[in-house]
């Protein structure tokens, strides 16, 4: 399953790069990209299950907040 999300309050480009690396390393994520300019996060996960995917997004939210505390994944 592959989904794009808008990121709110993404202010730092270097943080975006670190978030991207962090989310890519989450279990179940095959690829993640963050475009700093469009503030968009794309997650490509191995699972097709909506609940499992939501769990991955939750984990991704944790990663984002650890770099920028106000950064929110909008879903």
């Amino acid at each position, binding site marked *: 399953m592959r989904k794009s999300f808008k990121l709110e*309050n993404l202010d730092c*480009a*270097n*943080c*975006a790069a670190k978030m991207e690396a962090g989310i890519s390393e989450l279990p179940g994520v095959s690829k993640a*990209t963050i*475009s*700093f*300019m469009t503030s968009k996060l794309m997650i490509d996960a191995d699972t097709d299950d909506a609940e499992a995917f939501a769990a991955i997004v939750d984990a991704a939210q944790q990663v984002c907040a*650890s770099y920028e505390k106000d950064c929110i994944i909008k879903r």
Partner: protein
Amino acid sequence: MSPKQKRLLTRIVVALVIFFAVIALEETGVLRATFGSPGDVYAEFALFLIPYLIAGYDVIAGAFRGLVRGHALDEDFLMTVATFGAFSLVAFPHTEPHMAEGAAVMLFFQVGELFQSYAVDKSRKSIADMMDIAPEFANVMEEGKLKQVDPFELAPDDEFIVMPGERIPLDGVILTGESQIDTAALTGESVPRTAQPGDEVISGCVNLTGKLVVRATKPFEDSTVSRILELVENAAEKKARTENFITRFARVYTPIVVGVAAVLAIVPPLLFGQDWADWVLRGLTFLVVSCPCALVISVPLSFFGGIGGASRLGILVKGSNYLEALGSTETVVFDKTGTLTDGTFAVTELMCAPGVTEAELVATAAAAEAFSTHPIAQSVRAYGEAMANGERPGGAPATNGGRPATDAAPLADRVRDVREVSGQGVEATVDGRAVLVGNGKLMAAHAVPFQATDAAGTVLYVAADGAFLGTIVIADTIKPTAAQAIADLRAAGVKKTVMLTGDRADVAASVAARLGIDEVHSELLPQDKVAEVEALLAETERTSHGKGKLAFVGDGINDAPVLTRADIGIAMGAMGSDAAIEAADVVLMNDNPDDIARAIDLARRTMRIVWQNIVFALGIKFAVLVLAAFGIANMWMAVFADVGVAVIAILNAMRAMNVRN
């Protein structure tokens, strides 16, 4: 400015006022007079802490938060360590410690952050404005009243109304009404198109003059405008090699600089008895320069600006990687039809065998080609129909009173066993006769003795039951801008242009000579084109030592395999064609071959901006690092090398968005 930015601005202003007040107190000697020496240093320390904390408390908080979460070496952390360090020099009052610097670094870091966040917002907004081609509503007639609905709610076959001045919400066909349509937002083309009932209209274009009633042909999410927006937004996901390089570089840059900083601060004083305060300060200066933000922001921003700017010209680039590749294009390969020629064929010459009338020749060929959708077949049929109606396009009236001899029965009954021979022509049984229509290879394959011709154009030989009937010459019209386009490509630095075509060698050669194309491969079957492109790819790789790229330009209709195989697949005239948008890496909405050179120019310009930023940012940082190691650069310079450079790089990157229309 956002509320967050306004709050930061207020803090910075307050902190600046206090900061300069303290400086004034120090410079006028008030502090020394009041507290004596070294008492004044401690007073300074306390006083400068006030603006420092006002400006930077959130940075310090962020640093500790990062530390707790295990992300050391982030920007906040480095700034905090650098400034804490500067303040800690109060422990060496005899060295005239740089209390002001500690506060100033934090202040200017925040000024830079504010600038940076403002510039990023600005460029995000201008990109958003550029993409503002999405229609907000559709008008539908409900119970005799006009009602605005979300375009999402409409389905194919729904009817909607577009008033003058409004954006067309969905792709569709005009039912009633005539108007001028402005396609500039999609194609960059400033001359409006005329649209009449039956014409297709494309979503995202603006209806200029008349009210139109349109029947939707696609749902909103599949309409051109949605697809373009999706494509441009997703373009950022395909990162260029340069971008990935910068991200990787950033990952090692910071730890290395921080490591060197630690060595500088500790080793000389410890081992060589140097002055602690001096060397710690040098180390701290290093820390300030250790954030790679200028690069990490400005490189993707340049690419995104370039992609955004291109889309305004009707050139859609599907990823930063393709823009980068486009910038190093050395070979451009054209599939002739639909790119250099406009693909409309017309019969230009008839040559009959003895005893055969022109009408018979054309009618036989037209019947055999009756079910083919090939443009050549269509032009033969069109010519045949015109003859049958007693007209003869561009010539004298037909010779046998206009009517072909055998047109009584419907075509489907007269024509049987149609077989298209790829790259050769058509075989069919027409009125019981075995008819062959095709090129020399087809005639040779059936051992038909035929009169070969060297007329320029596509030559169709016609034979029935093994007897040669004559020759039909069909020529393709070259696009008016094609020659200019080839010249422009050369000016843009393309080393080689190649034309691939299924046409005969002499036709191909005559077109190539007129356009100034370097190399021609003709009489190719569709599958041959992939092989030719592969050979050319290898050649480009060899001659450019792996740096040059090959672009293939097709009309996107049946060249998907070649488009995919080339380094960069460019589809032309793709407005409204899903297949082309799908298969290509770069999509030219217009039919104009000149756009290829413009796209390459734009890509080169973007790459120049990217490299300017990389060289500039790294150059300044490196220079400041070296100067700091020798104790020449101070913290002020370091702050400039960090945030000043970032702001300048962002401003430079934003130039990528500006395109001449």
